[in-house]
């Protein structure tokens, strides 16, 4: 085996989840770009069009999973990058807490937005 260069401690749950979300995001992020720039053009997006897309349950669930996977992958990536730079002790705990709150806030806000777009609330 060659030397490991990864920023992540190997074998842990966070390490595994980072890879699983990565594999999911590769596919869905590519789909998202293709869907909203080539199939539908970003400049032509309207609330009515968004409502039609998001009222499809499969699309809605894919987008919510996309949000959760993206938020976890990004927040965990930032945390590990900072740990890699030498973050430790109390600052490490504070950063983890702040990032967790930001990540949970992002997911909650995003799900609220998704529900509003799908017509499941406010109708």
């Amino acid at each position, binding site marked *: 085996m060659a030397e490991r260069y990864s920023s992540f401690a190997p074998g842990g749950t966070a390490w595994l989840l980072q890879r699983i979300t990565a594999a999911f995001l590769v596919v869905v992020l590519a789909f998202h770009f293709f869907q909203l720039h080539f199939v539908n053009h970003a400049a032509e*997006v309207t609330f009515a069009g968004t409502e039609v897309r998001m009222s499809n349950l499969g699309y809605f669930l894919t987008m919510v999973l996309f949000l959760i996977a993206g938020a976890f992958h990004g927040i965990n990536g930032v945390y590990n990058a900072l740990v890699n730079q030498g973050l430790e002790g109390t600052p490490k705990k504070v950063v983890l807490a702040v990032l967790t709150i930001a990540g949970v806030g992002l997911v909650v806000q995003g799900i609220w937005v998704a529900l509003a777009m799908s017509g499941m609330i406010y109708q």
Partner: protein
Amino acid sequence: MSQSYNRGLIEDFGRWKEFSAGMWAWIFHKFTGWMLIGYLFTHIAVLSTAIGAAQGETVEVFAEDLPNVEGTGLTEVDIYTATLGGLEGLFIVRLLEVGLLAVAVFHILNGLRLLMVDLGIGLEAQDKSFYASLILTGIITVASVPTFMMGVGF
């Protein structure tokens, strides 16, 4: 088969002139990662106008100013359509979207490369696959420019 060498401290960015391909891949992956998570927060903030739109919040706009609104003159549209149209009508936003695409495509391609590295596949070609990621990112980005810039110069 087994080999290992001291790469030195990669976190010491002052050594950048000595960096090899794999070290640049590591730095680019972090840089694009930071940008993508930053964008995700911005993206959800902009899309949050859908909450107002779903509750019937509207604004008056000049239809000609927004690429996603039909008709002419002063028109009442929902806050989400007005916000997205207002942003998409700006050249700088479209240019930033091309930048976002480049960042996302590189992160995806280099991410695939990292998954392969993690699985121990093609380790001896890890530098070549980094160059391939860069070249492919360039090609996909350039090929997407006409679609991304439609209506603002193309």
